[in-house]
C-alpha cells in the first residue's frame, strides 16, 4: 500500500513539476502570497516541498511536507530535487563536498587514525575514480580520535549538514547549501511576511542557480581559506581590530575577524569562483575521489597554456553537448560550432571559448569577456628546471600559514558530535602559535612538481582523561612510520599581477623550507623555533648544519616530499648567475648551467682579462 502511495506521490510530483502554472486552488499562497518564485521553471510548491495544497489549515497542510524548511536536505533530496535533477544528485552523492572522504582520510593519516577502508559522511556504494565499485564506510562508525575530531570539528563544513550558528559561515544542507544561500545570520529577509525574520532560513526563496563567491566563502573561509585569499581577505591574527560601531570589524565565524590583503588578480579582473571551477569540480562528476585535488579538473594551464603546449580546444558538435546544457543559465550560452577550451581532464569548459586565436573566458553570471594571456613558448617559461614548477610556485603572493596547532582533547568534558547529533564524552579545543602570509616554503606536490606549502598540520595533541589529568602532552603523531610534523602542498588562490622575482625566491633560503633565518658559514640558523627542539624552525621543515641538509617534517600526499640536498643546492647555486643575468628571459637559463664557467664569466663581467 505504502509503495503504491509513493508511486502516486512521485507521479504527482512529476506532473506538478512539469506544469508551468501555479495551481489556482492552492491554499499555500493564502499565507505565503508574497513568497518569491524559486525560478521561472520552479513554480509549484508541492512539487518541491510536499504537503497538501488543498488544505487551508496550516498544521494539516504542512503535515506531509519534507522538512518542512528544506526539502533539498539529503534525507529528502531523492524525493525533491532529485526527482528532476537525478544526474546532478547522483554526482553530488559521490562528491567530496558531500562525502568528505578526503577530510576523513587526511585526518586519519595525520591523527594515527588507521588506513583500512575509506570513510564518508554516510555509508554508500559508489564508484571510484578508476570506475571500480567502492564501498564508503560511515564516519559515525570510525571509532577513534580521528573520527571524533572530524565529527566534532570538521563536519560542519559538509554540504550534508546545516550550519546555522556561524556568522557569515552558515549554510543550508543538501542542494540548498549552495543554491539557496543564507545571509550572514541565516535569516529570511524576503517578501513573505509569514517567514520574514525567521531563522534559520535562506535569505530569500529565490534559487541561485549560479552560486556567488559568498556561497563558497560559507565553508572555504577555514583551513586553506581560499575563498578569503581570493577576495583579498586574511584571517590573520584574530586581533579583532580595527573597530567598527563598537564591535570588532569584519567578524567571521568562530570569534575571528578578517582584514584586507591584495586580492587575486583574477578576482580583481572580475572572475568569480565558478568562472574557473566547473560544475564537476564543485558538484563532482559521479566518481568518488579520495582527495579534492583529484576531483578538481581546472588547472592554470587550461587557459594560459603550458611552457610547451597551447590550450586544448574542442568544437561543440552535438546539440545536447554537456556544455550546452550546463550553460543554460549563463549570460552567454554555448552554441553548436563554438570552440571550447578543455580542462586538465580533457572535458570542455562551458564558459571558455577559443576564438580567432584567443582564449576568452566569459563570466558565467555577468557575461563579461576576459582574454587569457597564453604563455606558451615565452622565454621566461622555458627555464631549464622550471618545467618542474607549478605555475603558482612563482605566481603567488600570500599563502595563509598557521604554525603550531596545539589541540587538546579533554575527556572530562563533553563535546557536540554533529554526525551523531548529541553530546558525547570528549571535547576538542585549539590554541595556536603564529600565522603568516609570506614568505612560504616550497616542496614537491602530488604531481611531483614544486609548489608552495602550508602547515598541514603541525599538530601537537594533549589528552586529558576523565578526571582531567593530562595523560598525553604535546604529542606529535606518527606519519609514514615516524613521529613528524607535516606540511601540505597548496595553491592559496592569491595570484598577483606579477610573479615573484627570480632573486626574491632563489636568494632567500626561507622559500626552500628553512623558515626565517640567518646564514652563518655553511649553516642556516632558523630564528623562530619549535618548542620541541632548539634548532628546528617552527615556520620551516628543514635545517642546514655545516652544509648538510636535513628535513624533519613530512610533506603529505602521495608522491610529495621535501626538497632534497641536490635540489636545494641547485636552487641556490643559480644566484651566482642571477647577480648579472637578472632577466628571466636571458637565454642562459634555457640550457643547463655550467658552473665551471663562473670564474671566467665573472672576469669578463668585471673587466678582468
Amino acid at each position, binding site marked *: 500500500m505504502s509503495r503504491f502511495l509513493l508511486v502516486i506521490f512521485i507521479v504527482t510530483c512529476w506532473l506538478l513539476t512539469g506544469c508551468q502554472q501555479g495551481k489556482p486552488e492552492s491554499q499555500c499562497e493564502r499565507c505565503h502570497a508574497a513568497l518569491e518564485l524559486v525560478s521561472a521553471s520552479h513554480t509549484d510548491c508541492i512539487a518541491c516541498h510536499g504537503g497538501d495544497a488543498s488544505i487551508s489549515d496550516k498544521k494539516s497542510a504542512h503535515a506531509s511536507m519534507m522538512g518542512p524548511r528544506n526539502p533539498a536536505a539529503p534525507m529528502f533530496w531523492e524525493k525533491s530535487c532529485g526527482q528532476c535533477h537525478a544526474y546532478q544528485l547522483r554526482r553530488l552523492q559521490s562528491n567530496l563536498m558531500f562525502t568528505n572522504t578526503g577530510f576523513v582520510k587526511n585526518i586519519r593519516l595525520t591523527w594515527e587514525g588507521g588506513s583500512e577502508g575509506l570513510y564518508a559522511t554516510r555509508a554508500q556504494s559508489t564508484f571510484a575514480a578508476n570506475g571500480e565499485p567502492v564501498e564508503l564506510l560511515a564516519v559515525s562508525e570510525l571509532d577513534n580520535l580521528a573520527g571524533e575530531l572530524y565529527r566534532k570539528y570538521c563536519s560542519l563544513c559538509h554540504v550534508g549538514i546545516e550550519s546555522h550558528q556561524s556568522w557569515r559561515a552558515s549554510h543550508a544542507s543538501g542542494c540548498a547549501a549552495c543554491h539557496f544561500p543564507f545571509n550572514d545570520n541565516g535569516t529570511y529577509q524576503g517578501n513573505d511576511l509569514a517567514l520574514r525574520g525567521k531563522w534559520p532560513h535562506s535569505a530569500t526563496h529565490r534559487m541561485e542557480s549560479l552560486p556567488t563567491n559568498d556561497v563558497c566563502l560559507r565553508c572555504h573561509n577555514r583551513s586553506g581559506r581560499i575563498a578569503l585569499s581570493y577576495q583579498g581577505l586574511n584571517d590573520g591574527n584574530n586581533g579583532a581590530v580595527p573597530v567598527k560601531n*563598537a564591535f570588532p570589524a569584519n567578524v567571521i565565524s568562530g570569534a575571528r575577524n578578517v582584514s584586507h590583503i591584495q586580492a587575486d588578480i583574477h578576482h580583481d579582473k572580475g572572475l568569480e569562483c565558478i568562472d574557473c571551477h566547473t560544475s564537476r569540480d564543485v558538484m563532482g562528476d559521479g566518481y568518488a575521489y579520495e582527495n579534492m585535488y583529484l576531483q578538481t579538473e581546472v588547472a592554470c594551464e587550461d587557459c594560459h597554456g603550458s611552457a610547451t603546449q597551447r590550450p586544448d580546444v574542442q568544437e561543440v558538435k552535438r546539440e545536447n553537448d554537456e556544455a550546452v546544457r550546463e550553460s543554460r543559465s549563463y549570460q552567454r550560452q554555448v552554441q553548436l560550432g563554438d570552440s571550447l577550451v578543455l580542462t586538465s581532464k580533457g572535458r570542455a569548459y562551458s564558459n571558455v571559448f577559443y576564438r580567432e586565436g584567443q582564449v576568452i573566458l566569459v563570466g558565467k553570471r555577468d557575461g563579461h569577456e576576459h582574454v587569457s594571456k597564453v604563455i606558451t613558448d615565452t622565454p621566461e617559461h622555458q627555464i631549464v628546471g622550471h618545467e618542474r614548477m607549478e605555475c603558482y610556485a612563482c605566481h603567488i603572493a600570500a599563502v595563509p600559514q598557521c604554525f603550531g596547532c596545539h589541540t587538546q582533547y579533554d575527556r572530562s568534558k563533553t563535546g557536540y558530535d554533529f554526525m551523531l547529533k548529541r553530546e558525547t564524552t570528549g571535547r576538542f579545543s585549539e590554541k595556536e602559535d603564529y600565522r603568516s602570509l609570506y614568505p612560504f616554503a616550497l616542496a614537491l606536490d602530488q604531481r611531483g612538481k614544486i609548489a608552495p606549502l602550508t602547515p598541514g598540520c603541525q599538530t601537537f595533541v594533549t589528552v586529558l582523561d576523565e578526571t582531567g589529568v593530562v595523560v598525553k602532552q604535546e604529542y606529535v603523531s606518527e606519519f609514514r612510520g615516524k613521529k613528524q610534523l607535516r606540511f601540505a602542498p597548496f595553491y592559496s588562490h592569491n595570484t598577483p599581477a606579477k610573479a615573484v622575482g627570480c632573486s626574491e625566491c632563489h636568494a632567500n633560503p626561507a622559500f626552500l623550507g628553512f623558515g626565517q633565518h640567518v646564514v652563518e658559514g*655553511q649553516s642556516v640558523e632558523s630564528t*623562530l623555533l619549535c618548542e620541541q627542539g632548539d634548532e628546528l624552525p617552527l615556520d620551516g621543515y628543514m635545517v642546514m648544519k655545516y652544509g648538510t641538509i636535513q628535513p624533519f617534517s613530512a610533506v603529505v600526499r602521495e608522491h610529495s616530499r621535501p626538497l632534497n640536498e641536490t635540489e636545494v643546492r641547485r636552487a641556490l647555486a643559480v644566484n651566482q648567475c642571477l647577480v648579472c643575468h637578472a632577466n628571466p628571459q636571458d637565454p642562459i637559463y634555457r640550457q643547463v648551467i655550467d658552473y665551471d664557467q663562473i670564474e671566467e664569466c665573472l672576469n669578463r663581467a668585471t673587466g678582468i682579462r
Partner: protein
Amino acid sequence: MIRLKNALIALLVSGSCVTAHAAHTQLKMATPCQNCHDSVVVGAHATLLCQDCHGADGDLFEPTTIDNKAHGCSGCHKQAEHIFDHAMSTREAEQQFCQRSWSQADPQFFERNCMGCHVTRCLDCHGEGHAINLPDVETCVSCHNGYFVGWDYSSRAPREDSVRYQRGGQNHGQYFLKMRPDVHFEVGMDCSDCHTMTSLQEGKIVARRCVDCHDPDPQVIEHSIDAHMYKLECVSCHAAWAAQEYGSFYIQTRNSSNRDYFRVKPVSDQYVKSAYLKRQDVPPLGLNERGLVAPIRPQFIAYYSEMKNNQPVGEENRLLAAQWKAFTPHTIRRGTVMCDGCHGNARRFMLEPLSRRIYRPDMDGLGLESFWRSVGQTVVNGAFYSPDQFTRMSQKTTEYKRKYVEKWQNFLKKDADSSAN
C-alpha cells in the same frame, strides 16, 4: 620587650615615619636592633650594621627609595641615586610618546596603562628585602619584557594578543614565542655586562658597544666592504630578528559589555589592547641618530577607539601616531641574512612598491597605504632611507658582483672546517 615590639609594628603599619622616628629616639642607643627586629641580611651586606643603611638613629625605614634619594645606599654606592634621574625612573621618552599619541585622546592614558614599569627604589632591581644582590637577566626582564628590548635577548618574542595564541612558555605573566636567543645570552652574559651601573647612573644607554669588545675580522666578506664598515651599525646585519607590531590598538571601554567580543588579553578595567599585525623576523632598516643604517620598528603606530554604553564615542580607529624608532634588537648572531636580504629589497627599506603590497591597511581604513612605506610615518630618532640612497645601495657594481658570488660560493661549499668562521 614584646610589648614594645608590638607597639613598633603597629607604628610601622600605620606608615608614619615620624611616629616611628619618635619611637626609636626613646630607645637607648645601646639597645640592639635584634631585640625587636628579626631581619637577617644575606649577601655582600651581611657584615654591615643595621645603622649603616638605616641611619645612625635607625630611622631610615626605606633606605633605597626615590623619596629619600636612596640615602641608605648612596653612602657607599656613590651617586647611586642618579639612577632616579634617568630613563628607568623618569620614563621621559614613554611619557613624551604618550603625549604625542594616545594622551591626545585620553589625557590620563599614561597613568591608566603605563604605570607598571617604573624604578622607584634600588630594591626594584637589587633583590628583595634584606637579600640584596646584583640583578640578572631575569630581573631586568621584569620590566624589559613584551615588546621591549630585553625579552628578545633571552629568546622571547611577544605572542599575538588574541586568547587563541596564549599558550606555551610564560615569563612574568606573559606567554612568549620561542625564538633563537642572543649569542651573548647563550654564553651566559648578563645585561649588566654591557649596561653597567655606572653607565646607567650617568644616563647612558650602554657602557660597551660592539667594537669595544669585538674587532671585526676583515676576512669576513661583508667586513671587507668599506661601505658596510662605515655606514652600518653592527646590528643592521647581526640582529637576527626583532619583535615588530604594526598597528597598536587601545580601545577604551566604559560600561560596555562589547569589550568581551574583543577576545584579547585584558589590559585593565578600562582598556582593551590588540594589534593588527605582529611579526618577529628581521626588522626594516633606516638611519639612526648617528646617521648610520640601523634596524627600525614601529613604536608605535597608535590607534585609539572609545566606546561608552556599547556605542562608539568619536571617530573609531583614530590614527594618533605612526612613529618608528631606530633601535638595537638584542638578537645578535654571528650569522646574517644573505645579500638580497638588504640589497634590492625595497620592503626592507620602507620602499615597498604599491604594486607589491600584500597587506592593505588602507582598505581597512587605517590611514596608511602600506606599513612598509614611509608616507605618513616618521622615525623619531633618525630617518627613513631615501629612494636615492636605496637605488645607490642596490646598484650591482663590479665589487658587489664579485663579493656576491664569493658569498654564495662560500655558503655552498661543503666543508665542515670552514664553518667555524
